[in-house]
């Protein structure tokens, strides 16, 4: 579903992604973890080309999203990959409902009534049907992130990317967002998730990728990774996390 092949990226003289080779199979959940500055967020942003890369290919559903292509094609490819941001990035001038309606209606040309029905179904699913007409500023962080997930799902993407979806939340709101993501995993959604929630990773992930300094140092099942990490850097990272 998502195949990264020889991906390299530089910010000036700094190599932020170094020879990344990895695959996410259909229906698989991959958790990307690692210390801050390791390139996790950059990596996930290259998968829908919010970031350009210097070399390599990233195949999404068999097509290289970093190939030269007309803008319209790239937009179409992006619309098939859901993306959830750390800072939610809801559109503050639109209600929760209109945030969700906007893209199916304007990008996919879905009729307003149909888009509205779909949005209401999604709001129900994330437990926010009663907040449909609230504006983002009136919602808590957890609620905003759940609306943001619903907004991404409204495009019916076969794959979802999560960039630290709970890092900006107060601790008591982390659970409600993870519950929604867990539900998606159970339905077989293909997902990549950058997160520091290790218990969540252990429970939901099929694979864990451990990154440091722009490289994937270890790829393992959560059992193997949390039980017996191979790379010394990963061992140190996990013991630091546990000491917290």
């Amino acid at each position: 579903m998502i195949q990264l092949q020889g991906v390299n990226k530089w910010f000036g003289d700094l190599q932020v992604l170094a020879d990344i080779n990895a695959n996410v199979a259909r229906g698989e959940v991959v958790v990307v973890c690692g210390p801050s500055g390791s390139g996790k967020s950059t990596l996930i942003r290259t998968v829908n080309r919010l970031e350009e890369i210097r070399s390599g290919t990233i195949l999404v559903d068999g097509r290289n999203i970093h190939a030269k292509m007309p803008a319209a094609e790239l937009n179409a490819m992006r619309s098939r990959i859901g993306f959830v941001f750390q800072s939610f990035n809801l559109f503050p001038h639109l209600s929760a409902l209109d945030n969700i309606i906007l893209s199916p209606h304007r990008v996919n040309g879905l009729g307003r009534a149909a888009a509205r029905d779909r949005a209401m179904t999604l709001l129900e699913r994330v437990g926010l049907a009663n907040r449909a007409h609230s504006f983002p500023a009136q919602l808590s962080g957890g609620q905003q992130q759940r609306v943001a997930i619903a907004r991404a799902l409204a495009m019916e993407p076969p794959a979802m990317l999560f960039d630290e979806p709970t890092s900006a939340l107060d601790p008591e709101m982390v659970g409600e967002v993870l519950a929604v993501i867990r539900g998606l995993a159970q339905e077989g959604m293909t997902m990549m998730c950058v997160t520091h929630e290790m218990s969540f990773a252990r429970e939901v992930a099929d694979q864990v990728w451990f990154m440091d300094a722009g490289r994937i140092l270890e790829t393992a099942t959560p059992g193997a990774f949390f039980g017996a990490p191979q790379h010394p850097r990963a061992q140190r990272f996990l013991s630091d996390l546990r000491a917290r």
Partner: protein
Amino acid sequence: MLHNAIAIVSENWLLLLIGQYPNGPLGGIAATLILSVLGIVLAFPLSVLIALARISRWRLLRAPATALVYLVRGVPLLMIIFWVYFLFPLLLGANVPGFATMVCTLVIYEGAFLSEVVRAGIEALPRGQMDAARALGHSYPRAMRYVILPQALYNMLPAILSQFISTIKETTLGYVINVPELTFAANQINNRLLTKPFEVFLILALTYYAVCWSLTWVATWLERRIATRRAGPAPIGMMAARA
């Protein structure tokens, strides 16, 4: 002196209000306000286009827009009035009335200044807004239209209004090309009376002050309201730029 001023107003209020209309062209405060409104209303879409060109990836759009803004900002308004006044008839091969000349000038001048306001408004939005729109599959123009501009322009409302206020004051320069606006009317009165310039121009100043002050008051009120809405819990019905 005060009763002189009152007498002047009571004898000339119609001239100050609408000029010699309907026996001549519309003038006075009416002309001033119409000039300002036309100037800003026509300059506004132009300013959005200039702002978009200024932040464009394409040099071909960016360079001329930037040049225009720098040129207009670096030249006194009076120069632009003269340029339009003498150049447009040559280019068009027809006579251009003073009123139209003044509207064209204001559109060019205000368009350039407003475009900087609009550009600042766009660039002040968090980058995540554009990222989110693009990640959902919106094209750049659509992201601008449905996500970026509605927010940026709403945030810029007070700045746009204060630009409108300076436009009102800039219409006074229409006087030099005989546009019968408020200053022109006051000068007509002064020429007729000959002996009361202080009173006449006091009236003129107070009139401009009253108009501009009330608009400044509206701008301040608007600014406070927007600030409360942005911070606060109740933006229901906030600018229904519906999806």
